[in-house]
């Protein structure tokens, strides 16, 4: 049968490959369906060629007889409507290290999740129970229960050489020592700052493992950003489910008069162990689904960018109209910082999901508006912090807020400039992407600085 298709003198193989690719772009048609259709196509072409047609003519006629591809796609979609809903299959066919079956990945993830879940119970065995005013100890150390497991998962998944992990392990150990050796005063601001900044600094270490030691590449860093966003969303979803499980546990046990026991079970085991184990499971799910399901973070970005742009513009307008200045207290400053982080997140995920080759559109203009509004808000917040510092002097909280605002200011202003250049057709979008990915270490460096230097600088208060 293949006699009509010798070693491709008429570019037939190439045409068939093109035809295959064209069909495969349709969601309702799978690889195996195209295999089946291709077998048909080749039979038909061979028969036509035998009847005297030139091979390329035979191919064209055979393609035509397969029928209108849109109609065919519709028929396939009607028969396989489930395919339009992409399905998550955790049968690690892609991405798993060679020679590892899907089952072994699942068991490794499960083992790591159990390790993370049980790790949080270890301090209690060593005489630091979860209650009795030790909450801050747990909050400060939370990174050390979960991040090493996550790190281990990526070391396994990306097949990192043990030698490459040395520095990372060193970073974990050093951070764990510092966080617990510093003689914090009771209820000190620096202890809270360390607890807040430690996960940010160590997240970079996870990122280096995630990229498989290709941290230097902008594209790999961007993948890590995407991973982080999806992980967050999956984690929130799993946490919602965990809340339902907890509620039902309490309810059913209360029904048989074991209310106090159920509360203890939930508080001491269910919630802390579940919260840590879930992080590993969420990471695994994100890894498994990355090419299968639409990323949620960019979808949410699309939804909320216009809303936040509107809110910021209206806020600035109201401030200008009434002449009211920002009333500075700690809560408000933290609120502004969070707002800027959120805007940065919107920017980052918009950048991560955008085709860098696409032409500027209205959404890009909206992004620029959002970034500009955030910049103005940032400057207002900076002025307020500056006024407060000059009035009351430096404190750990104010310097931390100042540093974060400055870092965001630099990022947002350069982003705004790059966006403006892009919108005016003076520069490529990839500049913006590269700027965002090369800025990532700055956040980690600042967080590490706060963790390392703030407690001694401010006398552990």
């Amino acid at each position, binding site marked *: 049968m293949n006699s009509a298709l010798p070693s491709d003198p008429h570019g037939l193989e190439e045409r068939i490959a093109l035809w295959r690719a064209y069909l495969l772009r349709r969601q309702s048609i799978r690889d195996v*369906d195209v*295999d*089946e*259709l291709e*077998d048909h196509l080749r*039979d038909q072409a061979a028969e036509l060629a035998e009847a005297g047609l030139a091979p390329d003519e035979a191919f064209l006629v055979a393609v035509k007889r397969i*029928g209108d591809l849109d*109609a*065919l796609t519709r028929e396939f979609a009607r*028969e396989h409507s489930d395919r339009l809903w992409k399905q998550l299959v955790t049968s690690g066919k892609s991405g798993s290290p060679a020679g590892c079956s899907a089952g072994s990945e699942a068991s490794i993830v499960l083992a790591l999740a159990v390790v993370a879940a049980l790790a949080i119970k270890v301090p209690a065995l060593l005489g630091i129970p979860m209650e009795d005013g030790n909450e801050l100890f747990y909050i400060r150390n939370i990174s050390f229960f979960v991040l090493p497991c996550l790190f281990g998962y990526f070391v396994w998944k990306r097949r990192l050489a043990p030698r490459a992990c040395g520095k990372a392990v060193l970073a974990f150990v050093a951070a764990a020592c510092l966080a617990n050796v510093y003689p914090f005063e009771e209820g000190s601001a620096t202890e809270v700052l360390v607890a807040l900044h430690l996960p940010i600094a160590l997240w970079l270490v996870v990122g280096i493992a995630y990229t498989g030691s290709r941290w230097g590449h902008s594209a790999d860093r961007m993948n890590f950003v995407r991973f982080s966003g999806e992980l967050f969303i999956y984690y929130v979803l799993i946490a919602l489910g965990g809340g339902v499980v907890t509620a039902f546990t309490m309810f059913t046990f209360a029904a048989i008069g074991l209310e106090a026991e159920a509360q203890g079970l939930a508080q001491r085991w269910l919630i802390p162990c579940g919260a840590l184990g879930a992080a590993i499971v969420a990471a695994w799910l994100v890894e498994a689904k990355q090419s299968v399901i639409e990323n949620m973070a960019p979808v949410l970005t699309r939804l909320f960018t216009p809303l936040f742009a509107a809110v910021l513009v209206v806020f600035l307008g109201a401030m200008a109209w009434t002449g009211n200045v920002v009333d500075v207290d700690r809560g408000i400053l933290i609120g502004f910082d969070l707002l800027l982080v959120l805007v940065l997140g919107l920017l980052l995920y918009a950048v991560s999901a955008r085709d860098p080759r696409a032409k500027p559109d209205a959404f890009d203009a909206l992004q620029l508006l959002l970034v500009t509004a955030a910049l103005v808000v940032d400057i207002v917040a900076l002025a307020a912090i500056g006024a407060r510092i000059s009035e009351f002097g430096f404190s750990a909280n104010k310097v931390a807020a100042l540093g974060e605002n400055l870092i965001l200011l630099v990022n947002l202003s350069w982003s705004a400039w790059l966006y403006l250049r892009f919108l005016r057709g003076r520069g490529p979008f990839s500049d913006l992407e590269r700027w965002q990915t090369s800025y990532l270490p700055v956040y980690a460096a600042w967080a590490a600085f706060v963790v390392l230097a703030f407690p001694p600088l401010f006398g552990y208060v």
Partner: protein
Amino acid sequence: MKIGKDLVAASATPLILAILSEGESYGYAILRRVAELSGGRLQWTDGMLYPVLHRLERLGQIEGRWGKSASGRKRRYYRITAQGTRQLVALRRQWQVVNETLGDIWFAASEASAQA
């Protein structure tokens, strides 16, 4: 003569089941057999056969497997299942009723026109 779309669609299932009841076959060969049986009068759009095959497979009336053609190419073969055979018997009865009814009325009509 071109046979209408609805009729082609309606006759597809019994035809496929009947052809597969002769023995295991595959897409292209099924179409060849249809052309042969109808003397080329029953024309299907080739591609449309496959969604129908997949539907019958989902319904459990036929069963597919991946095999190799004579030239070593990947090919999907289908054969009829017990359930498919029962379905074919039922469809055959239905089509016979339609066929006889139409035969009767057309016979009566030709009688009437002969008498007139």
